[in-house]
């Protein structure tokens, strides 16, 4: 694929992500912090987010699976997930966490399970979209082109 086609595809794809609320301005902030001295910054931070989130989802599953649910523990995990998703601009995941937190406060197990499912869904969605973004970036660079800046 031609470099300019790739670049156009990249611009279209990332604009859609922002428009559909998968990513917010915090992601742009991350991109702005990346430069020649730290060319992998965004992928490094996002990879940490993937690792953190998957571990937290496992923790949440386990905690909600107990005979007697420790809602304080659930809330603590949700707080962390909310923080991580906010830090990279994963807006939809963050929003689910806000609803999740309310279910914790209400000690609503069914509600929490529902939120966990939603969080998982949104997480896997944004993960696959980010992986596509990174793949496109790699292809552009491999083709000798430069990644368009979206701000």
């Amino acid at each position: 694929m031609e470099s300019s086609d790739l670049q156009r595809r990249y611009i279209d794809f990332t604009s859609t992500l922002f428009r559909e609320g998968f990513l917010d301005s915090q992601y742009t902030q991350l991109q702005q912090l990346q430069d020649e001295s730290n060319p992998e910054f965004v992928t490094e931070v996002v990879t940490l987010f993937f690792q953190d989130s998957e571990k937290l989802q496992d923790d949440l599953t386990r905690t909600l699976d107990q005979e007697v649910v420790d809602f304080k523990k659930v809330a603590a995990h949700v707080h962390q997930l909310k923080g991580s998703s906010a830090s990279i601009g994963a807006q939809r995941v963050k929003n689910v966490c806000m609803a999740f937190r309310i279910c914790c406060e209400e000690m609503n197990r069914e509600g929490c399970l529902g939120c966990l499912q939603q969080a998982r869904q949104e997480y896997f969605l944004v993960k696959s979209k980010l992986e596509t973004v990174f793949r496109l970036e790699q292809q552009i660079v491999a083709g000798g082109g430069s990644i368009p800046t979206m701000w």
Partner: protein
Amino acid sequence: MAVVAEAQFHVLAVDDSLMDRKLIERLLKTSSFQVTAVDSGSRALEVLGLSEGLTSSSAVSPAHNEIEVNLVITDYCMPGMTGYDLLKKIKGSSSLKDIPVVIMSSENVPSRINRCLEGGAEEFFLKPVQLSDMKRLRPHILKGKSKEQQPQEEETSSTSISSNKRKAMDEELSPERRRLKLSNYSLI
């Protein structure tokens, strides 16, 4: 070691989340700060030369193999020692009390913010911390430095909140000062 012009200040960043440490480190470096990032309050105290369990009187003096830290920026919610606990330890130490401390939190809780400011924190940043927040750090470092150099200088409201509070514990933080800080955040 080459002597560098005064410009580079050293910030100690404290956060138990690896992700957030990476972020704050990048934000600080991009803003021309030297950074040491640690994952806990107790590690922070080690870097500052004040080990847990030792009283401030037995703290290692700055002359002994210790890095000079110009500002501490710490997360509030950490297991073990919270950012607030760390703040109190720093402000309670004769050797460290003049180091400006900034607290970060992902939660906008007015009582928490108040508590930290009254505990001697210079600022309270909401997470995710922005590049624009970094601009607010240098003034606090410079104020601290000028206080160091001229201890006889008349206290201005902007530099000596902590000493004001120690002098008169029931005297409230000057209303304008608090409003100035709190108005930066939506408390609704």
